[in-house]
């Protein structure tokens, strides 16, 4: 686990700051509450992406002398890509008259297309999300799903594994093939939808 904070190679003024675990964070991304954001390693946050790590559940009561430890607001797995102009915002709801934020979990090898708003509770691994989607609060996206561009996933919707989802509101339009995520690694076609995205991460610089 690493935090996206300290720039290890400040000297080289490149677009991306690379952390010790290989995360690439664009200098032009907007990251709030970075102590509450966990990136699993080899993940990318591109320019213009906004991560709202400051939206966390405030502890109910503070015992005397107890220091407030960092709470995870956004957890991103390995080799996941948050493309340009995405907004990642932990979901919230009003509980007992208080606004309560819930942590968000994004799995491994998840691709989030540009301009997408994400407020899901859980996005499992090997999920491909198209451009300009809206994933409303507390939606749950299971593994190996494909979300077509311009989809609006309503709040509290659960998407079962291996579904293709599209429309406004989102409906399950089909199933991914058995070979979803398979077949990458070859020359010229290093990465496929739902597959291992490490090659794509490597190519971003």
């Amino acid at each position: 686990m690493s935090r996206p904070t300290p720039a290890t190679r400040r000297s080289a003024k490149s677009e991306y700051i690379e952390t010790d675990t290989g995360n690439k964070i664009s200098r032009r991304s907007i990251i709030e509450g970075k102590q509450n954001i966990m990136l699993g390693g080899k993940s990318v946050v591109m320019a213009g992406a906004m991560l709202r790590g400051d939206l966390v559940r405030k502890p109910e009561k503070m015992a005397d002398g107890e220091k407030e430890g960092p709470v995870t607001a956004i957890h991103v797995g390995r080799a996941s890509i948050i493309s340009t102009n995405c907004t990642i915002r932990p979901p919230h709801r009003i509980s007992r008259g208080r606004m309560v934020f819930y942590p968000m979990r994004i799995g491994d090898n998840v691709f989030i297309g540009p301009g997408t708003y994400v407020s899901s509770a859980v996005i499992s691994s090997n999920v491909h999300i198209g451009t300009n989607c809206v994933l409303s609060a507390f939606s749950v996206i299971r593994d190996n799903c494909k979300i077509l561009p311009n989809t609006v996933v309503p709040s509290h919707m659960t998407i079962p594994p291996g579904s293709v989802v599209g429309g406004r509101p989102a409906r399950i339009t089909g199933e991914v093939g058995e070979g979803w995520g398979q077949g990458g690694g070859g020359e010229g076609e290093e990465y496929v939808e739902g597959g291992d995205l490490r090659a794509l991460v490597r190519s971003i610089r």
Partner: protein
Amino acid sequence: MAAAPPYALYVCPCSSLSSTTLAVHAKRASAAPADAQADEDSTFNSHDPRANYALYPLDHLLFCNECDCIRCPRCYTEEILNWYCPSCMFEVPSSQVKNDGNRCARNCYDCPICTSALTVAALPRPSETHLNPNETEQGRYILQCGYCEWSSLDQTIEFSKPTKITEQLAKKRKEQRRRKPEDKAVSTAHGADQVDGYENLMAFYKEQLAESGDASNTYSSSPYSSPANLAKIMSLYGGLSVNALKKAREKPQPMREARTDKEGLQVHSLDSSAVDEETVRRLQAVDWQDTPTHEQRFSGPLNHQAIQTNELWPVATPLRIRKGKRCSVCRQFLSRPEPKIPNLRYKIRLLASNYVPRLLLRPLNASSTTPNPAFRLRPNEAEMSPLQPNIMQQYLLTVRNPIFETVKITLATSSSTPGKVSSRVTILCPSFTVGPAGDVWDEALSSSTTSVATDDGGRQAAMASLTGKSTDEADRQPEAGKIWTRSRNSTSIILEVVPGALKPPPSIVPKSDDEMLAEELTEDKDVLEIPIFVRAQWDAVEDTDASASAGRKHERRAAEGEKVRKELAYWCVIGVGHIADG
């Protein structure tokens, strides 16, 4: 075609549109010998209206390793493994599906207006008791849609507790029906009572069945439960025949039919003018946008007769299924997911991508590898520029070998593409070999790459690929009969394409209307697609018994060695891009 170019779609040989592989030939020789022969000579036309039903992306295709055949949705059979609710992810046993229908019986409901999932929400307490909640006071809950702001308050339904929604809803519905007797006449005539009537009938007939005494089912606990089994055994051991036995037993009370309204009998009256008038009167009071659409009315049986949108009832979430797929020839499982619902893993999965050489096209002199259009990272990333007609383009066609043997590939295509816009295509090196796939470590530990690359003129290419960018990379010219690059398990060759013009050159002779009509381009006809026939041959070491018993014609056993020559042939359609207009 949904995919953005460049793409590669594969034709399953089961379709009669494409020429069949030899393996299928052998099997289907009796079925359509003449047809198959005719197909063998013709080119696959990707713009044929029927072609869409034969073209699949490689990840949707399976491969039967018993039959050595590609299997597509048309030539595998599916069977239901289990049912589950997509919303709560609970598995529903098949007995429950049979009894209660294919809908979730838990708390999962869909919005009748927009089909998105409903959530149970607590209504806020009235302000005077807000800060002083009474312990005895029951909470008030509603079903709410998170997308279109529909809530069960539209139907004036409130729940007293957030669980057991199904039971509470059923109770509410009964109450509502009792409350509005004036609606009853209308709805009965229109069959809105069908659901209730059906329930009554079910209850009645179940009772009748129980009363009539399981005469036929006396042996249900024994292995002689089926009548056929019983008859067989009775005839074997002589004595009384089954029929005689049946007669001998006391005759049960015959089942009677439903007689009353309570038992589910509904009398249909032919004279419905009064009801019709009532319906028309109600419809007059409704705006057009307040009448439900067909989709909304067919969302559930309770909504079939709704006249206004506010009569729509929440829809129990329909169940989904998980399917296993079997080869329709040899009945073996091609794909079988694990029974655990929340994640998708496979016990058996025979993917075509692990058996079929994969084709990949990209422009030769592009500065970088063309990005997969699904992975657009920036909104302003340039789309592929359209192809200019009549200007020769060179493409790199990479064939990747997924199997562990060296494969000899022969490519064939017609010199001009089929369809309205005919482009000229030349494969500079139609016949070549592709090295075996294997562990990356194999390559690193043994210097197998050089031995593979010693074939026709591949050494230089191999050296170039090993040393990275060679010095003469820039001014290298494509040559006929030479492969371009070669790596461990893939070989790249050059493809020359001259896109055809969308419009024919202007002619002096005026055209008839029919000709004009024929020239009009329909959707997707401006996409340049190249059908390529791929034939892969390799020597496989195979169990001799198995191959002998299988008796496949295309396998010639080479001498006494256990090497068997195998062959796979299929059409592959490669989408290059859109042709520019003008």
